[in-house]
């Protein structure tokens, strides 16, 4: 008799369960544990070292009355919205261009994708330099004779976020383009044929048929891009260091500054908890769309 009693079901496929241990530990200890720890300590007045001295919501009160934090939030919101719109729009348009059965497709694709290989540190440095009014585009154009030409986004609080955007898009659109291209290629050829037979112009087909069909790709892209935006840090540090003034401060910088420079961990934790909250706000609808509706089988 090789029948097994029910109790042993726990030990069925033991190997699989053992193999999942790293994942389980990581999720429990690092992601759940670490997050809880951070949230808990955001209710304390920890300074340089974590200290279990409960102060209620004080850190949050201070956080939300802090101009820098508010500026950082607004900067991120502005940058985030612009970046989302442009990354996705540009990524899609580029993908559409590359999807026209063009020659040298892979060359163009490589050109658009290579910045993705570079770190934000590098991206920030290069663009800081190209946008530098003394030697970058502004100076070059002036030397060509347009003496009054001004293009100095990084040193003007009103435009600095666009300066970041130029660099951010340069780095990230290639990847978005790849995702979109993969999505476009996944669309049934027959749909195109059907639209042609129906006499639908190409642009209309893209707009009314293809884009709605690519909804999952758009959602995936949206989430990936949005997650990147919330984490935005290196680029700002390298390109503007949050300046001029606080015009390009972002929440991640605030967290880092308060945790380490200001030696006010409690404040840093409170700020990071707020970031986490915003992540959840982005993610929960997505998770609902992604996992709520359909079953994976």
């Amino acid at each position, binding site marked *: 008799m090789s029948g097994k009693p029910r109790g042993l079901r726990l030990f069925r496929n033991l190997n699989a369960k053992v193999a999942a241990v790293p994942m389980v530990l990581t999720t429990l200890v690092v992601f759940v544990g670490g997050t809880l720890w951070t949230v808990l300590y955001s209710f304390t007045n920890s300074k340089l070292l974590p200290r279990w001295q409960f102060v209620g919501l004080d850190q949050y009160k201070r956080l939300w009355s802090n101009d820098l934090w508010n500026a950082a939030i607004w900067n991120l919101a502005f940058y985030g919205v612009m970046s989302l719109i442009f990354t996705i729009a540009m990524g899609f348009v580029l993908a559409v261009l590359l999807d026209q059965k063009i020659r040298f497709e892979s060359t163009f694709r490589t050109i658009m994708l290579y910045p993705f290989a570079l770190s934000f540190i590098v991206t920030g440095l290069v663009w800081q330099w190209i946008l530098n009014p003394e030697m970058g585009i502004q100076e070059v154009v002036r030397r060509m004779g347009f003496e009054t030409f001004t293009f100095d986004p990084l040193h003007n609080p009103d435009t600095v976020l666009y300066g970041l955007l130029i660099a951010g898009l340069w780095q990230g659109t290639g990847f978005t383009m790849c995702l979109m291209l993969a999505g476009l290629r996944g669309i049934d050829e*027959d749909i195109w*044929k*059907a639209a*042609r037979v*129906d*006499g*639908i112009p190409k642009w*209309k087909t893209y707009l*009314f048929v293809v884009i709605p069909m690519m909804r999952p790709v758009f959602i995936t892209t949206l989430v990936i891009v949005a997650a990147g935006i919330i984490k935005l840090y290196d680029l700002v540090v390298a390109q503007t260091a949050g300046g001029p003034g606080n015009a390009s401060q972002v929440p991640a910088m605030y967290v880092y500054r308060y945790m380490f420079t200001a030696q006010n961990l409690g404040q840093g934790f409170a700020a990071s908890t707020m970031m986490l909250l915003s992540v959840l706000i982005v993610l929960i609808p997505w998770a609902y769309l992604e996992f709520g509706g359909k079953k994976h089988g």
Partner: protein
Amino acid sequence: MTHSIQVKDLTLSFGSVSVLKNMNIDVAEGEFIVLLGPSGCGKSTLLNCLAGLLDITDGEIWIKGKNVTWAEPSERGIGMVFQSYALYPQMTVRGNLSFGLKNARMPKEEIDKRIARAAEILQIGPLLDRKPAALSGGQRQRVAIGRALVRDVDVFLFDEPLSNLDAKLRSELRVEIKRLHSRLNNTMVYVTHDQIEALTLADRIAVMRGGIIQQLAAPQEIYNRPSNLFVAGFIGSPSMNFLHGATVEGGRAFQFGATRIDLAGYEGGAILERPKAILGLRPEHLVIQDHAELGLTIPAVVEIDEPMGADSLVWLEAEGGLKMSVRVPVERRMSAGTQVHLKVDIAKASIFDTVSEQRV
């Protein structure tokens, strides 16, 4: 006779590979043409050329008396139905049907009228506000047909419209398409690799191989008098039984191993004496009997008996290990190993030349 579609010397190459070779087809007004052939023979390619979805390399295409060789697909007066349905998934059925019309700036009432008519013909009225995802396969296919229907076109092109459906639904929709055709009476070109569809639907079947039309004729003609070995073997399930032998006695008999079959009564050309020839016999044109008849029967041993509900297939082994199949009434059960004799109905047989592979 009015020509609905004329294909003149059509050639199409992808790079150096020529996929369609110098094709000529005339389709009469209201005719139902089926393109049949093995996978990769160019059926879809030909259909796409007719629709204007592929630029042809050479030749001309005329539809309704107009040279449309370089016209846009939407200007050709054709509607097309795809194997994968190709419905716009995010639009309702009504949206799918009206998208092309709206794009052509047709007035709203006219659009509604046409949709109503199509919905009535195809019985999809209750589905108009659903999305394709909420439809069954058969319903989707009907909507796909509807999309061609509302455009009020002269020519319908179907590319394997039923092959994603299960057998039962397939046979039902087949009948519906036939009804549709007899009701609308417009020209239809229909690609399939399902013989039953081809045989039941077509006014004429074009059997293709490697980009060349092998035979273009009425179904019974193709079934009973296949013009060459390929067509003979391709049409019919199970396949025609082929006996490799020789015609002897100046073409009056066929010699297969020790068996000689009398060819008197063969319907075809002059047979002559050929050292190598092939006798083709369809399973339903053989009758199993216990006793031999000189010049009329082939001895064989029963191997397997396959009852198929309405009738039954018997698989036998003849001289030289040749596997043969015979269709018998389902009541007649044969047990393996029985020695029998197969009586040939020579009037329904085909003889092919081994070299040219043509029917003689």
